[in-house]
């Protein structure tokens, strides 16, 4: 082999080595790129999942918002309806309620705000009871609807419902812990008519007003 060939061979070897080295480096780079690519893909997948979750959350929140808006609309629609019916209530009941519950009886905001006060409930119930006892049945019916609505309003301001209307049905055994005798009642027996349901505080279990029933 002449010198030229030898030189050429050396150059070839060197070039081969360089190529191999380059190939190794490229492989390393490729591996890194591959790893990074996988990592990025994984991140992308994570971001996509997060995006999906956020989309779902968004959707859920939109649903909740819609529901709340609907409920709110319904609630205030019902409030408006009751507010209008309240104007039909007799002057006597309205006079009493003006002092403790609905300060401005011709103002809807006052009606809603007054009704949402926990301390309003007892007065409202008492006036309803008085109307019922004195034979003002129509007034009593309107006030009862308002009372139920106010219980909902008060409850909606709390994490858990604080007040609950007492359950009592005709045919139940009279229970003096939860019921009190209304007009024309016997002292013991079964409930034969429910005049007015009472209510209780769910937090401490206190019966704030007992149901008024006819016992027979």
């Amino acid at each position: 082999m002449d010198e030229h060939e030898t030189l050429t061979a050396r150059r070839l070897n060197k070039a081969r080595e360089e190529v191999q080295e380059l190939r190794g480096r490229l492989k390393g780079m490729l591996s890194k790129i591959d790893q990074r690519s996988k990592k990025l893909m994984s991140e992308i997948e994570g971001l996509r999942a997060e995006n999906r979750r956020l989309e779902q959350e968004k959707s859920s929140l939109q649903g909740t918002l819609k529901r709340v808006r609907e409920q709110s609309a319904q609630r205030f629609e019902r409030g408006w309806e009751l507010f209008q019916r309240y104007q039909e209530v007799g002057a006597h009941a309205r006079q009493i309620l003006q002092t403790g519950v609905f300060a401005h009886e011709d103002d809807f905001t006052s009606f809603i705000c007054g009704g949402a006060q926990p301390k309003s409930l007892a007065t409202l119930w008492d006036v309803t009871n008085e109307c019922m006892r004195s034979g003002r049945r129509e007034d009593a019916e309107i006030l009862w609807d308002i009372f139920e609505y106010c219980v909902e309003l008060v409850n909606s301001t709390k994490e858990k419902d604080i007040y609950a209307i007492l359950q009592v049905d005709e045919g139940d055994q009279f229970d003096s812990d939860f019921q009190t005798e209304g007009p024309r009642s016997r002292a013991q027996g079964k409930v034969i008519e429910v005049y007015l349901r009472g209510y209780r505080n769910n937090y401490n279990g206190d019966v704030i007003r007992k149901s008024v029933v006819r016992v027979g």
Partner: protein
Amino acid sequence: MMIELPKNRPSRLSAVRVNKIQFNHIFTDSAVAMGEKIARDLAALKDDIAPVADKRFVLFKNKKVWFDREVSGLFPRMEDRDLPVFQCNSSFDNRAIKNFKCFEREGFKFSFLTFQEVEKTFGKGKGNPYLDGSGNLTFCKNVSHRSNIIVGIKEGSDCSYWYDASNNCRRGNECGNCPGNCTYTATLVPIYRLRGKNAAAMSYFDSFFSWIKLGLMPEGLKARQEKFFSDLINDYPTLEEYITVEDETITFDSAHFSADVLSGAFTETVFGYDFDIKGTLNAVLDGSKQYSGSVGALKTELLNCDHKRANIQPYDERILTDINRGHWDLFEPAREGDIEIDLPQDEMLVARPPQMDVRLHGLCAIDFGTKSTIVVCRDGDARMLRIGKGDYSKAPTMKDFENPTAIELRDINSFLDAYRARVGRPFTEWDQVTVSHQAAEAIFKADVGSSVYNSVFNELKQWAKDEQSYPILKDLSGVTQDIKPYLETQSIDGGDFDPIELYAYYLGLYINNMHHKIYLDYILSYPVNYRKDVREHIRASFERGLRKSLPPALQADEQMMKHFRVYLGASEPAAYAISALECFGLEPKRIGDKIAYGVFDFGGGTTDFDFGIEYIPENKRRNFVIDQFGFNGDILLGGENILELLAYEVYKDNIDIMRKNKIPFALPPGCELFAGAETLVSRTKDASSHMNNRILAEKLRPIWEHTDEIKSFGEDAMPVTLFSRAKNNDSYTLGVKLNVDVKRLEKRIEERIRVGVENFFQSMYSAFEGKAVYPIHIFLAGNSCRSAVVKTLFDEFIKQEEGKLAENIKADSGQDKDTSGTFILHQPLGMGDEASALDPSMLDRQRTGKTGVAFGLLRCRKGGKDIKINNKNVDRDDEVKFQYFLGDAGADGQTFTVRIGREVKYGEWAYFTSADEADFEIYYTTTPRALKNNLPIEQVSMVRCVLDDEDVSEDDDAGVYVRKVDPNTIEYAAGSEDDFKGEFKGKIYRQKLSQV
């Protein structure tokens, strides 16, 4: 001790004898129950038979007709193939059709259908039971055209026309639909209309009642349904007025029905039950008829006997059948006039001698309180009882054991009649009189002016003490019940009305029943300041009432009744001290130890102070002895009185509103009228004034009890509905907003209690004078002592008094001495460190400032050899010591000055004033602060006394002398000192003193 049981009565019974009242109950209850059963059955029937009857086409079992709801009509059943058939174009038949009037069957007159009706009923494919799939009638004579139904003769012509069910079309001569010369035949199916021609469809309800009225029983009912339906058909005419249908509900007015049955307005026999109560009852009572009613009614009566009597949970059925149990009432010996009820052969009821249920070692302690009464029974464990709350399945609350001292009269005449008719366990009813919780609540359940207000009596204890109290009660039916002063009142059986005996009777029913067994030994606490004769009268009332709650068979057992006793054990504060000394671990450990105490019993209506020393007797005949002395109190200091005081303050602060709206108010005891208030504020408690007082007091309760609600007072004026004397919008109630100054009211509370605490310390010094036993333990008792103000004030006074003591020692001996710990304050039981965490299952054993009295009482029992009380608050005759300080207006005419103190004994004449003019004034008070001689004269009571002219003398030796006769009476006379040394010969004047 062995119980000797009666041997003259069997325990297993095949026949039961019941007395007339009981039988009357059974019979009438049975009739009422039957009425209620009819109501239930009727309400259930329409749903029960709906699967069979709620259809369009219904066949009937008892009459040959069928029904189509869509046309509201009945049709003759066709199985007999007897409906007339006509040829359609025959002039002969046309005449026959024209002359057809009606078709009669089962009493119904049927007539032609209209086209509209026939199309509805016989239209193909509508499920008509008499039409086959091709539209042919299934049961008709063998004719050529089985689908044709005659409808009638066309108006204005002689031509018939008919309906072809197979083709669903109308046909007839000259109508164009009928082929000429036709030889068609048609069946005449007539209708009986329930609602007229071409009527709208009937509802199921309308159909149902139409069938009942017409006596039609649908096919396909079960035997049980058929029986009821058949009875209903028969009895409907007599029951029709009680039956209504509304909103698809059938209602039987059982209340109206029962009322008619019981009043004798309804005497028919329906559903096989004879509702002629009076007739049947009389027949059974005079023996001409045997009772044939259900034994179930008898059992129900027996199981519910105490439920009906006192609202106590009914007994379970095994009490009648379990040989180891048995029912007391079945053991009662037969009395003349009793009715015998034979039991079926397979039925055997078990009688139980009440003697077997006597807890011979048991003891019952009763603390008869002004506001509430505590009952503790001991047979092993000592436990409190709930009175008036007879549902033992319910978890109790602490309030349940504080039984309000109240009765409510609902039907007093019936109650008294029943009460007097039987020696024990009379057949009185809870619906005639209620007590305790239910009675106490009754006052708030109706309007003022209604009968409810006067039907409730909750001042039993105050009435007992007041010699001039004549309360008038009115029951719910409007019957007036006058009440005499207590000491003039005799037994209920003797014809009087004694509310305390009545209350004790109900306590007895709750103590002695088949749930709890029987107690014969009773110990009562008593108010320490009540006169001896009043205390004895209370004991006698309790004895009568408690005895009345015992079964007659037991009362007839002389041996057993030797164990029955009711006695006075200890005064209320002493009994509380016993509990407190035990629970706080203060009882003396060895002979020579002396434990001094004072009780500040701050209740709802009054505050009592009492003092004593506990020690171990040297003779060891008892575990401990208590020397009790120095009783005193503040008759106007009570939690409820403070609330009334606050209410009055708020009333005064808002007088302009009250005046403008004519809102009256009852002046609370111990308060003074203010200028210009006379027309609105009254001393008498008329209903409106009293209710306003109560309503305002309740509103202000958060301030007194210092609950969270107190915050709301600062936010706005307080809205409240009060009673006015003028009508407003057709009502006597009125809503007003009142200004409430919480700080000022709190200060008022503090001022009022401060007076009480000051009185207590004054009494304590007086009581312990010369006794030198330290430290003195101060026990706070009564529910009102839970107020934080009480503790604060006591702490303040203790510090102050201990300081004064140290100063006095220094002044006397020149030595500095640490006097702290001389007075040791103890919070009410149940509030301090000794109170264990409240275990719900231990609630009936929980000692509190209120319940501690009854528990302490148990330790004073006779034979217990436990604690003996030497009551030095009474004299040798056991009479309570005279409580008043007697005096005059002092040198300045403004300050009460004691002239005759408590040291002067009954019967001793003591100089009071000169006898130089006929008139003189005696001021008097029980307030211990009187001893300081600085009490403003307007804070004490006064009586004006007058001497006869011949007793008036300018002689310097002549004076007015006074002597104490009984706790509320004095006598005075004029003379010289020598005249009173022996037996006084002159005129003696008598004067009553009253506490308020």
